[in-house]
């Protein structure tokens, strides 16, 4: 019966050591504690053979039965139910032995050998079952470890995912704010570009102003002078008429009257001239878009090359330039936006002046600057060539010439927009602009415009 107590103790000890701890309720812990004390006490008293054998056997079986009952009925020990089965055969053998010994001692000797054998088998069964149980428990433990590890991994993954999401969020808002900044910069650039184009327009108007002033001053001087002269002549005729009719110098008076007549015509002519200049200035300075109209290209060229020339002469660093107009009188009126197209002439003329000024400063005084305008009637197109004998354009920058903001001028001398705008205007007229040049000899801008 000592073995039964050892089993009792072992069962409790084993369960407590490997599955006990926090998962046990205080009540269960109390049962375990008292169960272990009881089994220990029984073991000691059993060894000392103090109590009567019957009582000792009965108490030992009662304890082990109670423990098995406890294991089977405790929800905390659900998985350890198998363990309760482990010592069951041993306990059954002992119970039978106890019952036989107590109530049928006459049969005891007869069955003792069987019972001993059964006890032996029951021990083997118990050990096997226990080993089995341990194995199960171990694999269960491994499983639990694996699932714990999995859980940990999952948690880590979750955490990493959250971290990544946070980073993505951060980046996204960063990119969004950068996008907004860029958009703002782009808007700013666009408005600056508009301003630059407007400024370029004003600059070409400024360049015109001096030419226009000069151009208006001349006809006004003529108007003043011829009207003053006419007045003088009329006064002279008047005083002549007051003389003695016999002494009249008829020839002189007729001469004077002829002059007065011619002067009136000249006054009218110069008045018209000034009027035309003012009109063309208004045309150029108007903010609104000009209209496409049938236009005499030759006279537009004559007018604006002249204005550009006088503008250049009146501005700082004037140069001497021979301006040659080689215009085909057969070309028909062209559908032009005169306001825009006049800027083409002005820009190309100004460029030529600037280039030739560079050449004048660079080479000897033998160089004679010359700017030639040519028009030619082609089959379905009109050709306009503007050719200067300046320094020419090196091949490597010829392609860049028409790009916005490209300039060869230093500092604030050029906006780099003149030729780009010129090209845009030619294109808007359905035309093409080509550059031909030989370094040191000439630069030629060829513009082809459609006729109708």
């Amino acid at each position, binding site marked *: 019966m000592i073995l039964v107590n050892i089993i009792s103790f072992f069962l409790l000890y084993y369960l407590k050591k490997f599955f006990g701890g926090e998962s046990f309720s205080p009540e269960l812990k109390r049962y375990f504690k008292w169960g272990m004390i009881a089994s220990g006490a029984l073991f000691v008293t059993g060894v000392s053979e103090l109590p009567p054998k019957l009582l000792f056997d009965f108490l030992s079986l009662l304890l082990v039965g109670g423990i098995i009952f406890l294991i089977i009925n405790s929800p905390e020990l659900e998985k350890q139910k198998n363990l309760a089965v482990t010592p069951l055969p041993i306990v059954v053998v002992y119970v039978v032995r106890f019952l036989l010994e107590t109530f049928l001692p006459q049969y005891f000797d007869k069955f003792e050998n069987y019972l001993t054998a059964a006890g032996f088998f029951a021990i083997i069964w118990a050990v096997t079952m226990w080993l089995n149980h341990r194995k199960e428990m171990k694999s269960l433990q491994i499983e639990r470890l694996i699932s714990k590890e999995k859980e940990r991994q999952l948690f880590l993954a979750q955490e990493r995912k959250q971290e990544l999401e946070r980073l993505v969020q951060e980046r996204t808002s960063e990119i969004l704010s950068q996008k907004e900044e860029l958009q703002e910069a782009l808007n700013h650039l666009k408005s600056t570009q508009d301003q630059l184009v407007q400024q370029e327009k004003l600059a070409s108007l400024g360049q015109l102003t001096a030419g226009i002033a000069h151009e208006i001053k001349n006809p006004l*001087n*003529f108007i*003043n*002078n*011829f009207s003053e*002269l006419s007045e003088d002549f009329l006064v002279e005729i008047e005083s002549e008429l007051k003389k003695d009719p016999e002494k009249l110098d008829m020839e002189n008076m007729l001469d004077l009257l002829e002059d007065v007549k*011619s002067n009136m015509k*000249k006054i009218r002519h110069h008045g018209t001239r000034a009027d035309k200049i003012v009109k063309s200035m208004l045309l150029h300075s108007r903010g609104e878009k000009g209209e496409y109209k049938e236009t005499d290209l030759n006279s537009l060229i004559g007018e604006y090359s002249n204005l550009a020339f006088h503008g250049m002469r*009146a501005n700082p660093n004037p140069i001497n330039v021979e*301006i040659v107009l080689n215009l085909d009188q057969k070309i028909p009126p062209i559908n032009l936006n005169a306001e825009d197209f006049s800027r083409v002439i002005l820009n190309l003329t100004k460029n030529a002046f600037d280039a030739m000024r560079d050449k004048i400063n660079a080479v000897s005084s033998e160089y004679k600057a010359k700017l030639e305008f040519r028009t030619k009637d082609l089959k379905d197109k009109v050709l306009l060539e503007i050719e200067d004998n300046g320094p020419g354009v090196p091949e490597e920058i010829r392609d860049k010439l028409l790009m916005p903001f490209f300039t060869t001028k230093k500092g604030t001398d050029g906006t780099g927009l003149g030729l780009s705008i010129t090209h845009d205007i030619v294109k808007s007229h359905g035309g093409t602009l080509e550059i031909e040049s030989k370094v040191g000899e000439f630069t030629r801008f060829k513009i082809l415009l459609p006729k109708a």
Partner: protein
Amino acid sequence: MKILFVDDERDIEDLFRQKFRKEIRNEGLELVFAFSGQEALDVLGSENPPKVMYVFSDINMPGMSGLEMLAKAKERFPQITISMISAYGDSENYNKAMESGASGFFTKPVDFEALRKEIHQILSQ
């Protein structure tokens, strides 16, 4: 007494002829006109020695400028008096004209009374 006026504006011929009508009729003043720097040099070079005594020239003209003409004319005919007339009374043009041997510098609009005085002075010489 021959005076040459150089200007690219053709109407100055009528203007000057009328302005100096009396001098032309009564005092033997003769006026010639050239409408470019090159033409002026051609006029001067057509007579040897040139009968022109005085040249009045505009500065701003297409092609050869008045200042260029002045320098060339002074080089070839140092005895001729030349005065310049400019629409732009800037000191740069003035200095250049004086360096090249100009006798006078007028700004437009021309003060005809000053010009008349100048011409009378030459006529009386």
